[in-house]
């Protein structure tokens, strides 16, 4: 198991390094003036390039950049925020995104699990039908559509909740974005949990447990839940990442200063801010790969088939 974890960590770090290098390379080979905000002569630009080491070999530049990145320094933006250090802007954005995203993930997972379990235990009953209708809805309608609907109903029409995000009024202004973001997670987890549960409930080993005389809560908690919930862990990683991606639009619409909105600003404005694209690209990739790593390890810990290596039989 320890060997497996170490191997997984090493591959993740290597993958991240490769992706970072590719991002760096792609962004750096872009033609164009790296100093668009300043008026300079060609000689001055050349001098500045030399000073900043932009004419060094790409590997040297990359290593220099990575050294800074390791201490959290992503340089300055080229057009966004008047060249303020990316680090400061990013810190605040990450904090905002994680708070709202975290609430959405917790809400979605908790409600999704409960809904899925209840649906499976009452197969073909009201909650089962509710669960399947709900998961269809959640999968067919993007989060930002829910957001627009909630914003229109609860903020524009009735003013129960703030129309835009307001960090002064954190709690109230979190409700609309986190609820709308959690719906996709919720419906996917509900459907997945329900299907896993049903499959486990139809399995031979549950028949055997029943034939031993297990029933009710004991049967559900000891045999059904444990087996059904382990695979649910695997859908969580892509869901969380999807949530971060989906958050992009939600943050844009609801005016949240998060990493998603930063990304939109960096790519959709008039001038593209290469440094932000690079920094955010690295952060997104790191998050994604990190999530996959955590989930894989967690899965290994939970499932004895991976945790405990196979030993010889009696043949």
């Amino acid at each position, binding site marked *: 198991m320890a060997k497996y974890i170490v191997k997984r960590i090493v591959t993740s770090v290597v993958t991240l390094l490769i992706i970072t290098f590719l991002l760096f390379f792609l962004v750096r080979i872009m033609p164009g003036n790296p100093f668009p905000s300043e008026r300079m002569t060609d000689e001055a630009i050349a001098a500045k390039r030399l000073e900043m080491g932009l004419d060094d070999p790409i590997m040297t530049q990359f290593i220099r950049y990575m050294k800074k990145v390791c201490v959290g320094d992503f340089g300055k933006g080229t057009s966004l925020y008047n060249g303020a250090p990316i680090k400061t802007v990013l810190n605040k954005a990450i904090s905002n995104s994680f708070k709202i995203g975290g609430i959405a993930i917790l809400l979605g997972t908790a409600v999704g699990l409960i809904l899925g379990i209840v649906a499976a235990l009452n*197969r073909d009953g009201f909650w089962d039908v509710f669960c399947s209708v709900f998961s269809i809805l959640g999968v067919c309608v993007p989060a930002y559509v829910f957001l627009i609907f909630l914003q229109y109903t609860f903020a524009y029409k009735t003013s129960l909740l703030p129309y835009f995000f307001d960090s002064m009024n954190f709690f109230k202004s979190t409700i609309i974005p986190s609820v709308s973001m959690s719906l996709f997670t919720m419906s996917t987890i509900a459907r997945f949990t329900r299907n896993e549960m049903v499959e486990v409930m139809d*399995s*031979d*080993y*549950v*028949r*055997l*447990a*029943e*034939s*031993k*005389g*297990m*029933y*009710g809560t*004991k049967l559900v908690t*000891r*045999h059904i839940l*444990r*087996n059904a919930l*382990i695979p649910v862990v695997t859908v969580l990683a892509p869901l969380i990442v999807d949530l971060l991606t989906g958050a992009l639009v939600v943050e844009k619409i609801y005016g949240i200063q998060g990493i998603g909105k930063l990304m939109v600003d960096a790519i959709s404005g008039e001038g593209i801010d290469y440094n932000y694209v690079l920094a955010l690209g690295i952060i997104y990739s790191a998050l994604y790969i990190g999530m996959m790593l955590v989930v894989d390890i967690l899965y290994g810990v939970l*499932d*004895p*088939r991976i945790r*405990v290596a*196979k*030993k010889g*039989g*009696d*043949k």
Partner: protein
Amino acid sequence: MKVDEKDKILDIKNLDITFHTSAGDIHAIRGVNIDLYRGETVAIVGESGSGKSVSMKAAMGLLDSNAIINSGEILFSYIDEKGETQTVDILKKDTKWIRKNINGNHMAMVFQDPMTSLDPTMTIGKQITEGMISHLGISKKEAYSRAVELLNEVGIVDAEKRMKNYPHQLSGGMRQRVVIAIALSCNPDLLICDEPTTALDVTIQAMILELILKVQKERGISVIYITHDLGVVAKVADYVNVMYAGRLIEIGNVDEIFYEPAHPYTWGLLSAMPDLETEDSRLYTIPGSPPNLIHEPAGDAFAARNEYALVIDEKEQPPMFRISETHVAATWLLDPRAPKIEMPETLKARIERMRKEAL
């Protein structure tokens, strides 16, 4: 029949079950009667889909929720904690009651595929002790030592070490031994074995059968085998019930079924047994496949595949004709009005050989 003096442990009367499916209602069990006496072994033989597993699942209270019981009784007699004999109709009890009072401690089951019938996320030890702790009310420690004994009894070496293993660490044969240990853990009166050797290697099959025979002898429990393998039947059974399309079509003791089969379907099954001596190089198979019970046949369900079908077979279901005190068969060929039809010559020769071998 004078057998009433013997102690009847299971008495299934006129069981009739329909499954409600999206494709239509499947009349899977169409009036089944099975008797089993204490200490004896009955084999239920038939092709897949003949209803043999379903009838035993009904006895265990393990039917799926889409099963509708149209009629019948499943009377089960067991000796309770006070030493008194109790007789209950399983079909009249709710699932919770059956789990609490019958499953595991009085009636246990061994399933077909040991690769899928153990909980993959629970240690072997926990799976064995679980039933004991809830049924016998003993401490964890005592259950543990009993479980180790049980594992030794079913022939697992290194029992202590195996207790901490997960199912995936054991081979198929070992897993089936564990399943048997689980079934025996609370000293059941009746053990139902649903094709216990089908999924195993041939060499391990014999070992598992011998194990079941051994524990049966030692503990004096009754056993029901569900199987399509007549080889297994010959080895273990006292009585044989042949099932076809949700009905019993021939019942007899093991000698009667093997040496004097009366139903053409039983002839077919016997002819289809692989055999070294048969001159014919082609293995006989019964033509066709069992009927789809969504469309219930009007007459004898086997008529469509029966070389010896009579005109009446397509109109009316044959009743049970009594051949001897223990032997009955449901075929119109036994009606006094029917033409004299004997079993095929090749089968006759084969039975002769079997008789000689048995002597």
